[in-house]
């Protein structure tokens, strides 16, 4: 997709989303809020996977750090949202910087395992630090400003935040920095020879990914009025990874499609059966066997086939 077309499509989707509450369905608003949050979460992970070529198995850590930080600042310390949200996002970035500093020293499977280890460490802290996080009871009763108290206003707030996040990530990924990341992904040795500081570049990508995951986490916690240790567990990291794979990691918008399709499928499946994990397994199988570049890649292949005729 050329830049202008994707901009037009983006504005079109944004307009539709902005008009969604007019449909009058509270359920659709709730669902859309959750999907938007997962979209941002998946998109943030793709900076690492799709652009830098580093598969992280522990992305839920930064989601949880952002969510817990925002929740604790709002509820325990009674900060206003205007301070708590930026502070939570910055903290996620700082934590990603610290953890990423060590992780980017490794590559491939070793990198993935280290991200997983750090994520379980974050889970462990959330579990054990009961005075602050509430341990495995979770942190419920998050104080959300009354202005955002109803579903519609919170939906618009989420929409603005997620749209800004997506726009920022688009700019980052399409900047010289983004292109250099792709160069590192394709051939790190050669990128190094032409003067790219690959490790530092991957570190910055790690921080960017963690920061936006933190924003998604903060939005998630406020939406549910609760953060729980399950949000930091490796299963959450796996879910967002599957979202990215399903949507297509080599497309900027792929993870948005993946997050939307996977979450809606999960919600729809749950209404009929409890065997969602089986369905998820089948989806994963189909992606790995037949759709290595995800739904976005499938769409591109169709377009190319159409063009030839």
């Amino acid at each position: 997709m050329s830049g202008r077309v994707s901009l037009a499509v983006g504005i079109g989707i944004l307009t539709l989303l902005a008009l969604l509450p007019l449909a009058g369905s509270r359920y659709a608003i709730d669902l859309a809020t959750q999907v938007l949050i997962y979209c941002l979460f998946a998109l943030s992970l793709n900076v690492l996977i799709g652009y830098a070529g580093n598969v992280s198995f522990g992305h839920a850590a930064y989601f949880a750090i952002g969510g817990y930080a925002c929740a604790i600042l709002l509820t325990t310390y009674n900060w206003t949202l205007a301070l708590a949200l930026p502070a939570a996002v910055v903290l996620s970035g700082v934590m990603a910087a610290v953890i990423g500093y060590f992780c980017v020293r490794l590559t491939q499977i070793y990198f993935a395992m280290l991200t997983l280890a750090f994520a379980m460490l974050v889970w462990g802290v959330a579990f054990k630090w009961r005075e602050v996080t509430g341990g495995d009871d979770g942190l419920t009763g998050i104080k959300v400003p009354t202005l955002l108290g109803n579903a519609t206003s919170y939906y618009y707030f989420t929409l603005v935040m997620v749209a800004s996040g997506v726009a920022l990530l688009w700019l980052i990924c399409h900047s010289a920095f983004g292109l250099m990341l792709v160069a590192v992904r394709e051939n790190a040795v050669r990128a190094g020879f032409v003067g790219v500081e690959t490790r530092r570049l991957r570190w910055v990508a790690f921080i960017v990914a963690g920061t936006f995951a933190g924003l998604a986490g903060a939005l998630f916690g406020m939406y549910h009025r609760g953060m729980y240790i399950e949000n930091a567990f490796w299963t959450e990291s796996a879910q967002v990874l599957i979202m990215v794979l399903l949507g297509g990691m080599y497309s900027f918008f792929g993870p948005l499609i993946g997050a939307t399709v996977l979450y809606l499928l999960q919600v729809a499946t749950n209404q009929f059966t409890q065997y969602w994990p089986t369905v998820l397994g089948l989806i994963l199988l189909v992606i790995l066997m037949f759709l290595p570049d995800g739904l976005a890649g499938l769409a591109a292949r169709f377009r190319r086939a159409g063009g030839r005729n």
Partner: protein
Amino acid sequence: MRAGWSLVAAMALAAGGALAQGEPIRIGAMYPLTGGGAIYGVPAMAGHQLAIEEINAKGGVLGRKLESVERDDKMNPSAASATMKELITKDNVHIVLGGLSSAVGLGMSEVAKQEKMVYIATVPKTIQMTSDKLHKHVFRIASNTDLEGDTLAELVSKYKVKNICHLQLDYAYGHDLEAGFLKALPKYAPGSKVVLTLKPKLGATDFNAFIPQVMSAGCDGVVSGLWGPHFVSWVQQAKPLGFFDKIKWISGGEIASHEVAVSLKDEYPDNVISNTYELWYHSQDPMHKTFQAALAKKLGTQETPQWSMLGYNGVLFAAAAIEKAKSLDPDKIAEALEGLTVHTPVGPLTIDAKTHQSNTGQFWGPMVKQPGKDYRVMSPVEFIQPKL
């Protein structure tokens, strides 16, 4: 993405629509139906369904049938919160029942508070729900960790345990039960003291590091919250060492339930005093006989699990409250639940108007051998019911 939304909108419209007279009353139920919690959640859901079937066979409530809308809570509080919101906004349920873990219970209670929807917690025991996180729309018919801790302290006094080894699992339920027990101990047994506190991890299977510590601590009794599989592992590792010959084991966590008795069979040790919500072989109320017979038929086994009754009682309370409120307005249902008494298979239970906690009792007693049975049974059975 757009196709997704229109699908969603269509589903929402189909499910919505004004509530007409004669339409069924929708009861939402959420239990863990997959994963590790399923062994408790599935029987609880069976009890829930049994109550719905029985009430519908008698003509329903306010002349309307009950419709059960059932979902897996996955033991994941965020997923459970989202699912509960869906039950409320899409399936238009009139009341929500269920939950199992503390975190899921608290998460569901939070949704109930936001959405002003009545939630009756049937299994979660965390004291927070009916103390500092209490609100107008949350009720509990399970026991709670304060009540359980209170009874443990009472039993310490009854069995004259002087030096206590305290074992609790290192997670929410263990911490809450520990607090409940320590609060009650000076009241019942001022002469007894805790000489050792150990906290194995949730899901631990290897207790070899803990067993010698307890055996050498000089305690004459253990107070424990090690439930189900934890207790089973402890017994398998400790019994060969003669652990239970010297030390009395007073435990919460329903290890006197028939499920645990059957999983240990001959290995079940002496000197264990514990609790259970229900015993299929013991009826203290005539209603229990009919309940148990119906449940046995539904599950295809005579030896029915204790958890079903909690799901069953949840529906009884919901139905009675709606009948009393003569309305489906959540505020009116909540008001009706305050002080409501319902006849259950273990006798009449009442929800306290202030704390929203029912005076749900439990059966407590020693687990003994009986001729002709390959599993232990509780005898004598004592029903300890809290005074609220």
